[in-house]
């Protein structure tokens, strides 16, 4: 299977509920980043978690990283209709050039008002 896989692929929730999505990867990483993409628009950086961090918060977002399981999760608490978007995990390569991001396939989140 491809690296940087998110699950679920799609998620539909009611406003006010929490949304959780997961990302798995196969290589060693220095950090993992989460991005949001509204339909047909650009990628907005949400949060970066480093390999020596287990959990990070930013507003209503909580990201965890488990390097032993090569997985990360993104939790959006108290979701709003405006959170409707696709969410992608991405991580940089660890080569000497080291800076290309590999993206997962994304989770499409629909928050119903």
């Amino acid at each position, binding site marked *: 299977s491809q690296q940087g896989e998110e699950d679920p692929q799609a998620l539909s929730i009611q406003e006010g509920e929490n949304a959780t999505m997961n990302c798995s990867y196969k290589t060693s990483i220095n950090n993992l980043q989460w991005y949001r993409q509204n339909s*047909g628009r650009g990628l907005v950086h949400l949060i970066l978690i480093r390999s020596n961090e287990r959990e990070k918060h930013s507003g209503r977002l909580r990201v965890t990283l488990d390097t032993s399981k090569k997985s990360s999760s993104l939790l959006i608490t108290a979701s709003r209709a405006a959170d409707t978007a696709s969410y992608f995990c991405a991580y940089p390569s660890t080569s000497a*050039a080291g800076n290309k991001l590999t993206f997962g396939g994304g989770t499409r989140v629909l928050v119903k008002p």
Partner: protein
Amino acid sequence: EPEVTQTPSHQVTQMGQEVILRCVPISNHLYFYWYRQILGQKVEFLVSFYNNEISEKSEIFDDQFSVERPDGSNFTLKIRSTKLEDSAMYFCASSAGTSGVTTDTQYFGPGTRLTVL
């Protein structure tokens, strides 16, 4: 807040034509990137650029593609002879390069939607 900008937002071209996609990275950033996203697919890395040269490129970035930083602010992607399969959203990104290249946040522009007919 500084942001990456891209022009045009939408480019329609005929197969075989040359296109130039333009980007203005965040002003004090040192690393620049192009990615693309074919409709419904993953975002794919094309090329990274640092110190006026390509630092890494993917298999997609063949001889038909080139990048340039013609002045202190613009960063361009040229496709010499477009193919139907080049139709995609093209994203420019930049990163500061101050905290170590592999730990930098990459900031993306809004994208240029390229349609090849």
